[in-house]
């Protein structure tokens, strides 16, 4: 065990995977000598050589397209997209190709690969260095979408994603890269994809969240506790395939639900949580299902702290459903 930040845990996870399996390699913009703009890939080129960790030309389509070809031909690429906001030139490769290859080839060809990319706000990055695009990908059958919120999970989920036979989009909450620290086991371990994490048990209100919203919701839950509202906080971790049973259980447990994410509300991931509940366990609901999300606008810069859900907003929603 050592105490690592989330970004160090990612780095440790990459090294562990590359040491354990020579098919694993890392490619992306500035991932080589520079070690990535967030230093997630620091030390990889020197340890594993420039054939297993290297910079590419400036083309996300090329990064993902070639990574698919590598995966098809026996490698286990981990592709970095420098910011999730820049993944869209590769949208076609991800959505039309990686996600659909197993299906369209009747299982003959597959693309076991991981796309790592930092997402979310908190660094004053404005429209194009702050977005949370999980809903675009979660709507795409054939992809897995994973978001860690602790250093332990960052490494364990990353190792599970690299070992997974299907393409995984691994979204890293950049706001937590250096702001959270935690115990991380040495060597290889895996956190199952498709299990939820109960961050905090509670009986009055269920809060669903993931990524950088997890500590926000934890703090809001602490403040709610001071008012006597006992919150069950659930970190979804694997957004798809989702542990739907687990979500429904957690919703039923309190009958009052708040969902929190940074992305815009309309057709956001939170809508699916509401819809699942409304479709399956609506009769247990004792209050409206509230969503606390980014606004339905592009991501602003100077006012980003107003855009991103914070404790105030989460607490307000918790109070409103608790008192309904």
């Amino acid at each position, binding site marked *: 065990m050592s105490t690592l930040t989330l970004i160090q845990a990612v780095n440790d996870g990459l090294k562990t995977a590359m040491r354990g399996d020579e098919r694993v390699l890392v490619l992306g913009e500035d991932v080589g000598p520079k070690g990535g703009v967030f230093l997630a890939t620091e030390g990889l080129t020197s340890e594993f050589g420039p054939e297993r960790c290297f910079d590419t030309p400036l083309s996300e*389509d090329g990064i993902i*397209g*070639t990574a698919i070809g590598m995966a098809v031909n026996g*490698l286990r690429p981990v592709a970095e997209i420098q910011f999730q906001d820049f993944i869209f030139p590769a949208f076609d490769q991800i959505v039309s190709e990686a996600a659909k290859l197993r299906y*369209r080839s009747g*299982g003959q*060809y597959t693309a076991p690969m991981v796309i790592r990319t930092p997402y979310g706000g908190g660094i004053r990055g404005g429209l194009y260095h702050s977005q949370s695009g999980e809903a675009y990908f979660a709507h795409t059958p054939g992809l897995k979408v994973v978001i860690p919120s602790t250093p332990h999970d960052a490494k364990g989920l990353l190792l599970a994603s690299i070992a*997974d036979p299907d393409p995984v989009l691994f979204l890293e909450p950049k706001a937590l890269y250096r702001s959270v620290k935690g115990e991380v086991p040495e060597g290889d371990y895996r956190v199952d994809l498709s299990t939820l994490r109960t961050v905090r048990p509670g009986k009055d209100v269920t809060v669903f969240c993931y990524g950088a919203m997890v500590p926000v919701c934890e703090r809001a839950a602490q403040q709610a506790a001071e008012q006597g509202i006992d919150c069950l906080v659930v970190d979804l971790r694997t957004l798809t395939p989702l542990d739907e049973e687990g979500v429904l259980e957690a919703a039923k447990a309190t009958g009052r639900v708040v969902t929190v994410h940074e992305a815009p509300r309309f057709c956001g991931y939170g809508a699916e949580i509401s819809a699942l509940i409304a479709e399956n366990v609506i009769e247990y609901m004792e209050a409206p299902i509230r969503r606390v999300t980014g606004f339905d606008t592009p991501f602003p810069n100077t006012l980003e702290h107003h855009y991103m859900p914070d404790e105030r907003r989460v607490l307000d929603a918790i109070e409103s459903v608790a008192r309904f």
Partner: protein
Amino acid sequence: MTMTEADLLTVIEADGGTPPDFDTGLSDAELRRAYRAMLSVRAFDDTCMKLQRAGRIGFSIPNRGIEATQVGAASALRPTDFFFPSYRDFGMALYLGVPPVEMMHNMFGDALDSAKGRQMPVHFSFTEPIKYFSISSPIGTHIPQAVGAAYAFKLRGEDHVSLVSFGDGGTSSLGFHSGMNFAGVWKAPVIFLCQNNGWAISCPSDHQTASDGFAIKAAAYGMPGITVDGNDLLAVHQVVSEAAERARKGEGPTLIEARTYRMGGHSTSDDPTKYVPAEELAKWAEKDPVERFRRYLAKRGLWDEALEERLQAEVSAEVRDAAKVAENTPGPGLETIFSDVYAQLPPHLRRQGEAAFDLAKRKGEAGAGDGAFPL
């Protein structure tokens, strides 16, 4: 485009002759096999067109006119190489030994289709006897994929190559740019085969780009570019062989532009008379690649009427039988909608599948639509 015919690499002359000491690099058996493959393409193609007109399959893509490019390229590679074909590459599969019946299962989308009836016709996918990569409809996406596969060969120190085939229209796609660029930088063992067949649906190839042909685009990526007569099987074989040799030796990628012509519509849904000039079509009909190769074989004493009859009989029977088998194969089972999304069926898909079966039991089967494919 101002490139003249004189710049084209051509081997087989109009009368079937070749330059004096020309070495084809192919044995007599291989030459005959190549010829048979071309006939096979034509039989398969004609049959599919007829099946479509008769409403027995939904869609096909004419391959007439471009057989020499497909077969010439395939004949230059090894079974251990990785093929990233386009939807208009019947000849690659057929030359390399894919049984026509396997292709027919795809045309009918039946239970024995290797893609389980999930894809449209002509979207083949095979792993045996060769790695014939699952074809995708979006144009150009397979280009960087072929480069990634080539990178894997190189990393493992294997001397295999990737061949990726695409059209003149495909050069405008994003995948062309990223694939070519990455291959150049990585010196990846990949052969880019641009089949310039004159058209991208209704758009003539000289409206696709203002460049002087397509081979010239290679310079933008630091690799050699070669223009070859795509109706000349031996010329195509030669340039692809050379490109493969360079790739295997670690000298990197090559772009080949094969000049040929689509002697039909874009697909069974297309009416080319609306936009193809009749004189142009007639001009190209004279350059028929099958006849040209036949003249060559005849001149070499490798062809006679008896051979022709035997081969024609063989390939038609093969294709006819294949169609019969496929047509009599049942459709894929309902469960194939839900499998192969992930390696393991996740619970939510299990539930959706169960609900579909349950509904079919309670309310009967869904009726098939009668959609006509427009493209």
